[in-house]
């Protein structure tokens, strides 16, 4: 039962990691795509709220453009927006021709996960905000602690599989086999045997716990502190167990 140093501090061999992440972005819906119309209008709008959009990444909404693709001056738009320190990073909606025209200038189509974007509150000039913290266009997430999303996994987690519950809890109703890995930013519940690795409390959530009906893991980690199986000599192996972090030590208690 060792509270070893955080694995983050161990040397890494691979030069990069590819990870999925969700971002809140503003969508700039172009109602009149002519740069000479759009750019000054945005400039006027934000002169009242200086700094609001400084270096803010925005996605260009193409749904309202009625012009054919060759008549839209994307190059002019991009240059004009950049001059206002607004950084277009992609497009959403619109016809394939429009998307292709934008793509040829380095603006790929961005897919929205939540369906339709909200009308961004551009007209009602929002209060000035610190730079690089734009008002989210999507409805704000509920305050922490009310309703965090829980991921439920009904299949056995097999060797080589990795299940990650981002931003919430993970429930596995079956077993986690040796060589399988379950990761959650919140708590992990395993209602079968836990024989693989369980990594809870990603993002340094030291309150996270791991619950297992039959506790027999290869590795267990909470908020970066971890213990391997060989170090679990005092833990009630094979029992129903909950694991939590007490200071810098992991505690293994029988439950049920």
């Amino acid at each position: 039962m060792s509270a070893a140093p955080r694995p983050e501090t161990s040397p890494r061999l691979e030069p990069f990691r590819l990870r999925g992440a969700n971002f809140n972005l503003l969508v700039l819906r172009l109602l009149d795509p002519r740069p000479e119309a759009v750019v000054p209008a945005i400039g006027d709008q934000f002169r009242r709220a200086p700094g609001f959009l400084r270096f803010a990444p925005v996605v260009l909404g193409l749904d309202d453009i009625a012009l054919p693709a060759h008549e839209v001056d994307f190059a002019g738009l991009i240059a004009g927006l950049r001059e206002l320190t607004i950084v277009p990073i992609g497009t959403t909606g619109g016809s394939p021709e429009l998307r292709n025209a934008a793509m040829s200038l380095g603006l790929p189509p961005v897919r929205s996960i939540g369906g339709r974007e909200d009308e961004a509150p551009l007209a009602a000039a929002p209060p000035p905000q610190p730079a690089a913290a734009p008002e989210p266009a999507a409805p704000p997430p509920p305050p922490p602690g009310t309703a965090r999303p829980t991921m439920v996994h009904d299949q056995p987690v097999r060797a080589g599989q990795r299940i990650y519950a981002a931003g919430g809890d993970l429930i596995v109703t079956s077993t986690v086999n040796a060589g399988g890995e379950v990761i959650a930013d919140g708590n992990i519940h395993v209602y079968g045997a836990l024989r693989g690795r369980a990594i809870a409390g990603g993002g340094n959530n030291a309150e996270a716990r791991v619950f297992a009906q039959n506790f027999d893991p290869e590795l267990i980690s909470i908020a970066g502190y971890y213990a391997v199986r060989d170090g679990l000599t005092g833990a009630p192996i094979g029992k129903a167990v909950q694991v939590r972090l007490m200071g810098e030590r992991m505690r293994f208690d029988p439950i049920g």
Partner: protein
Amino acid sequence: MAQVVVVTSGKGGVGKTTSSAAFATGLAQRGKKTVVIDFDVGLRNLDLIMGVERRVVFDIVNVISGEARLNQALIRDKRVDTLSILPASQTRDKDALTRDGVAKIIEELSKDFDYILCDSPAGIEKGALLALYFADQAVVVTNPEVSSVRDSDRILGVLQSRSKRAEEKKDPVKEHLLVTRFDPVRVERGEMLKLEDIQEILSIPLLGVIPESESVLKASNTGTPVILDAESMAGQAYADAVSRFLGEEKPHRFIEAEKKGLFKRLFGGRAA
């Protein structure tokens, strides 16, 4: 439409090719038009186990690269006339297989056959992935041994994520567990994993248990699929497994250690 069945395991040497040969022969014996494809390009063995190694002219790579037509490469079995074999190439490697090429072969075979068995190579690389990609059903071959069970677990995960059915979000591949080289005596002594333990980890339906048997090696060396040796326990166990595969109810045999009498204990005598 033909059913595509992959025989796979992850780990090598557990009896994939032996099981493919026995299973294909068993299905063909029941009157099903069956073809068995060797996907182990570069290390072809199925033709030896099936006893057709001297009749190989063209192979799957020749067909994919357009050097031969499919029916030029297919070898008709001389013992069971509803059975054909599509051999692997010995001189090429697995990069010679392409998904489009395999798709075309399977589509063409689907017209003439009821069952297409794909004998997968070991590992989880290209050859194995292609062998399982088109599968409707999978026979996962496992030995009662921890490394084999873990590799089978891994391959089950691959089947659920990287098969065509998984990619197209259709009904999942139907999985069957085939435990081979099972020795009840060694299980009793604690040297091998128990059947319940294997099933608990893999949690897929048990299709059959093939006892460790000298007749398997003998059958391989003579190029006779062991299922044709109706006297042997292994042959009977494969026949039972084929019956269960086709929907019959059969109790599992050869899973309990035989109680040896004094006479047998004195004079030994392993099961044939």
